[in-house]
């Protein structure tokens, strides 16, 4: 009896300890947001002042990508991209893992505090996380999100928060800027549609394809990508016979691959994230001879994916906003900066995840430098600086249109056998299509239907200027 009583007492205290823990958690959660932002910022000020040069008011920048879901493997790249502009301005990485952030960041004399966030590629979670960063952490500027449907939802939410400036991470749906048009939402990289510029032309005129099947994950970013391919390929006479839409996060594509008719000339692949690897491997097993049949989306040349796929994809032609084989001094400097800041991320500079978050933070930094970090006019001058920025990015200039959407070069590339000796196939740029804008040379406007499973329709029309038919070559 006495033994059980003793046991009961020990258990009681253990239970009480847990309860206190939970209570403490609750109190901490309550306390964190009640107080004004002045008090909130206090501890960070002292942390940054040790740097010595930071004198201005601290600026809080929230950064969020995906730490769960299909795109979680790319979190390191996104954070590397977001941190590099700060490291180039004197900040030091906390650790070799980019997600741990940086210390001592300053821009124009203002200490920069980075606030961590992460969602899971669903719009619900993205808005929830954006709300936490904006309303609870009280960030001044928010960088993110990563995924297409997330971007549309966050851009919608940004309209409710006119006091905060939003800069997109790497979410690439067309609607985010073309339709939503939030005045405080900026995107310093091309959308999924713009990334396909040049592919339809290459398929029709170089490869001689006439009938094509498209396959892409069933959400807004692949809709945008396939919209671009369809608009270009069909405008010059090509025919898209079928569009297949496996769900995002699918790991078994065999049932979709068997739906691709044997007699089509080829197919355009807009499968993203981790799905690319599974798709290509399964296609190889089921159908073989992949390279002459497939035209890849933007993820095909992602360094991480290339390493995984190896020789299987040699010969595949793809397009995107990065060209990994660029020998421009600015690009070489950028890649060496990555290598010294984050050795583990060396070689990922041409990943769109890295580059998108990099251009976002670099644009913020340059605009803040222009206004000397002064956000006191409700960001008006800062936003004007952002909107008018001529960003000299490592792979070419970036400027914004009136919807605050990037206009930049697009690169048509081919995956070729490894020559650098690192065991990973190389990327060769075939053509640079200059200054691709979001309307895709007039094919899309705020009034055209949003890209989805059926839209845009495959119709002959005015060929974009970069096609042979449009007089591009």
């Amino acid at each position, binding site marked *: 009896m006495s033994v059980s009583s003793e046991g*009961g007492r020990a258990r009681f205290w253990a*239970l009480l300890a847990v309860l206190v823990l939970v209570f403490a958690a609750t109190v901490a959660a309550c306390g964190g947001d009640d107080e004004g932002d002045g008090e909130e910022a206090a501890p960070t000020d002292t942390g940054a002042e040790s740097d010595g040069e930071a004198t201005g008011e601290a600026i809080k920048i929230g950064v969020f990508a995906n730490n769960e879901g299909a795109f979680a493997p790319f979190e390191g790249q996104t954070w590397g991209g977001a941190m590099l502009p700060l490291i180039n301005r004197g900040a030091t990485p906390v650790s070799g893992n980019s997600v*741990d952030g940086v210390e001592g960041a300053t821009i124009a004399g203002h200490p920069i505090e980075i606030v961590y966030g992460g969602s899971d*590629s669903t719009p619900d979670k993205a808005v929830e996380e954006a709300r936490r960063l904006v309303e609870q952490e009280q960030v001044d500027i928010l960088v993110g999100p990563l995924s297409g*449907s997330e971007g549309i939802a966050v851009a919608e939410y940004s309209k409710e928060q006119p006091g905060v400036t939003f800069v997109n991470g790497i979410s690439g749906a067309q609607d985010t800027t073309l339709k939503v048009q939030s005045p405080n939402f900026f995107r310093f990289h091309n959308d999924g549609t713009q990334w396909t510029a040049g592919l339809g032309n290459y398929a029709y005129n170089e490869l001689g394809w006439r009938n094509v099947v498209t396959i892409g994950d069933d959400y807004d970013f692949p809709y945008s990508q396939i919209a671009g391919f369809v608009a270009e390929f069909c405008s010059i006479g090509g025919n898209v016979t079928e569009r297949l839409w496996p769900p995002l996060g699918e790991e078994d594509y065999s049932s979709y691959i068997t739906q691709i008719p044997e007699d089509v000339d080829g197919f355009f692949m807009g499968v993203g994230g981790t799905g690319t690897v599974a798709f290509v491997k399964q296609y190889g097993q089921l159908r073989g001879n992949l390279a002459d049949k497939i035209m890849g989306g933007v993820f095909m040349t992602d360094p991480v994916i290339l390493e995984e796929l190896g020789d299987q994809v040699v010969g595949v032609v793809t397009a995107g906003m990065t060209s990994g084989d660029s020998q421009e001094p600015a690009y070489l400097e950028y890649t060496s900066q990555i290598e010294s800041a984050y050795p583990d991320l060396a070689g990922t500079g041409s990943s769109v995840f890295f580059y998108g978050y990099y251009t976002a933070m670099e644009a913020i930094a340059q605009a803040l430098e222009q206004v000397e970090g002064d956000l006191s006019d409700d960001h008006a001058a800062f936003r004007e600086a952002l909107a008018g920025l001529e960003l000299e990015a490592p792979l070419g200039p970036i400027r914004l249109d009136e919807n605050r959407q990037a206009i930049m070069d697009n690169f048509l590339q081919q995956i070729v056998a490894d020559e650098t000796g690192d065991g990973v196939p190389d990327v060769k740029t075939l053509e640079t299509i200059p200054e691709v804008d979001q309307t895709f040379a007039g094919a899309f406007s705020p009034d055209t239907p949003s890209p989805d499973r059926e839209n845009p329709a495959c119709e002959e029309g005015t060929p974009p200027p970069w096609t042979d038919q449009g007089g591009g070559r």
Partner: protein
Amino acid sequence: MNRSALTPERALWWGPALVLTLILVIAPLLFSDFYLSQVLTKALWLGIAAASLIFLAAYVGMVSLGQVALYGIAGFTMANLVEADGGSPIAWNPWLATLVGILAAVGAGLFFGAIASRSYGIYFLMITLAIAVLTYYFFGQVTQFSGFGGVNSVERPAIVSNPVTDPVNLFYIALLTSAAVYAFVRYLARTPFGLALQGVRDDPSRMRALGYNVPLLRMLAFGLGALIAAFAGIISVWWNTRISPGSIDLTRTIDVLVIAVIGGLFRLEGAWVGAFAFAALDNWTRGLDVVGQRFNTVIGVIFLVIVLLSPGGLMGIWQSITDFLGRRLAGKPPARPSAGARASDSPQPS
């Protein structure tokens, strides 16, 4: 035992409950808009969803993974019937759409209940898991109703207001709905129908021998669970202003199960206690500098500790504390130190 006697145990049990209720009633005065919306309102509707699971588990012995799917059916139906970006072009009055959404979920609940009512234990769990996955893919694949992009900017009744700029109304709606659900289930448990359900939970064969139609009772219970879940679904759409298949995927299904388990799977109050712990921890750990991107690990460890220490979840912990203190105050030795639940209407499963 005299029901109205104020024993120390009772005082310890109801005192904090009263204080908590009072805090909730005046919450808009105490907490920031953000906390009110993103933690408290979220906890309330997650709590309603978990309550539908706990109702089934505690009173009918059916542990269901289909509750999130059912609230999704209510949410998607409502979102499709009002003016929104995506989904069907129909634009009805939001209240009518809400009513139809709830009825659709109840209808689906009765239908799924009829299918699952003869299965027990792990088989029942598997069937409800299938319902969850089926519903997720249905709304993902049928673009006329949603597609993976979901239905966005869903119109809400005027009283709901804008949940971002003016979250107070939605908070009270969620609070009143929670109170109504709680009162309804507690009342139901004392009706002949509720007693029959508990009989089915304890011994289906004996109930059958007594002349009860056990599959019918279980089907009706599942329909009632769907009704409760439907309220959560409607409020979640108002709160998010959108719904997508991502709102009802397996992660959310597991979230609701976790909430019910850490709250206490066999006490109705546990639904909201668990939901609040879940929402607050999720919010708090994400903001911790020392934790950074590892917040999921911290949440996982805390939940693990709770469940390891107390199979009855947080409510079980509270139960042990009140039992212990109550006996101390009454001068009796702590005769029942285990973290068991009260015996009256919510026994532990065997």
